[in-house]
């Protein structure tokens, strides 16, 4: 079986950007960072609803963990205050650690799930935590330069739906 990990650089070379979808923030719980899990219609033919929702829910969970107000965050805050915040010169905050986890998760999701479907998730941190940007690519080369049947398509742009079907 050919590798399931679709090379992202190959995707960029062989595919052209068709459009972008932006998942907006969900403020119903206040100012904490949460994204809407509403499934955008543009992704209807590209990815399963459940996979998409799972990804967004996991991201929301990570952000909730980063912004959690509890014993450990108070301890960190008080310790930082006691050292006149000089401790931040040598220590990473809890939030920054979780953001790194989120970066790794998004990269993993891109490699395993999104890139084979011709999609690319952009880390919200690169968009000021305002949106999750999902780039939709259309394959432009005729020969299947991408790896297995789970790739985004075998050539023409109309095969995008077939790529999704091939993944199932």
């Amino acid at each position, binding site marked *: 079986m050919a590798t399931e990990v679709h090379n992202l650089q190959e995707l960029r070379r062989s595919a052209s950007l068709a459009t972008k979808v932006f998942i907006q923030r969900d403020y119903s719980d206040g100012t904490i960072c949460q994204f809407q899990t509403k499934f955008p219609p543009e992704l209807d033919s590209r990815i399963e609803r459940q996979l998409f929702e799972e990804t967004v829910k996991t991201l929301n969970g990570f952000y909730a963990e980063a912004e959690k107000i509890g014993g450990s965050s108070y301890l960190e805050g*008080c310790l930082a205050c006691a050292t006149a915040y000089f401790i931040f010169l040598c220590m990473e905050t809890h939030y920054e650690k979780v953001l790194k986890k989120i970066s790794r998760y998004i990269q993993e999701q891109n490699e395993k799930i999104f890139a084979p479907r011709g999609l690319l998730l952009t880390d919200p941190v690169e968009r000021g935590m305002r949106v999750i940007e999902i780039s939709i690519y259309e394959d432009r080369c005729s020969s299947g330069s991408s790896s297995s049947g789970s790739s985004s398509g075998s050539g023409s742009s109309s095969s995008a739906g077939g790529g999704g079907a091939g993944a199932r």
Partner: protein
Amino acid sequence: MSVMVVRKKVTRKWEKLPGRNTFCCDGRVMMARQKGIFYLTLFLILGTCTLFFAFECRYLAVQLSPAIPVFAAMLFLFSMATLLRTSFSDPGVIPRALPDEAAFIEMEIEATNGAVPQGQRPPPRIKNFQINNQIVKLKYCYTCKIFRPPRASHCSICDNCVERFDHHCPWVGNCVGKRNYRYFYLFILSLSLLTIYVFAFNIVYVALKSLKIGFLETLKETPGTVLEVLICFFTLWSVVGLTGFHTFLVALNQTTNEDIKGSWTGKNRVQNPYSHGNIVKNCCEVLCGPLPPSVLDRRGILPLEESGSRPPSTQETSSSLLPQSPVPTEHMNANEMPEDTSTPEEMPPPEPPEPPQEAVEAEK
């Protein structure tokens, strides 16, 4: 024979950021453009404390206790550290929407409101959200081309949207927002304590020395004392009052901006949906809660093909947009003069941040 190594100049993202901020130390330091009053703050604090350490402390350390200058030094270092942290850090600026995102939002707005015929003023763009059973309106920012998150506001002086915008403080030379509010609060708190401390020990010094050599001789020997007492006296009234006001805001989890606009005054049964209802919990969240890192990525390196282009200057875009006029008053009440924050030199010099003080007076 020598090999020439050509070093390409790296362009960092801060060089191309829109907005009216100044950056120093290759993007590590971020401040507002007008820094004159900040330098005055620094000068007053450094000058007064230098005089105190040089004259009064030497006498009091011998006569009373060496702990006096030690404690003063700790207070002084803490307030300087928090002042510099407040002034130099990113207050929580929300980066502007990239063209793709802006176009997507425009499309959504047009789909909701319908296309506006050419030449007609577009309707105000508002989205409603329900937070804890309160309807919160999100306003669209025409400069940044985003729907502002709740509690965010656009600062007309720095020309940025700032999260949990409190106010623009000319005395620290920066906006006070989500990321630096705790430093600001600790700065005014420690400055209050420092001012009270220096004032009190100046009085003690004058009293002790006058017993030995007389009042006028004391003043002649250390004329700096008079200056210190004067500065501390005026600073006391303003900074201590400001600290009290912000303690009240922290306890209720409100911002100066919301207080001035009267967002949660209780009329129409509107309650603050962000407050936990418990003073201790509110204080803990505001002062010791998790600190989000800056999303501006000032020191990121721009790819070569982007480094040649420059985002449109905000003066050009803002002057051409019709609905821009309400935006500069966003962070001030409609009946407060918005010019107060942009022309701080008109205010009486010894008084620290004016807008919140006006809010205190308005409340009285």
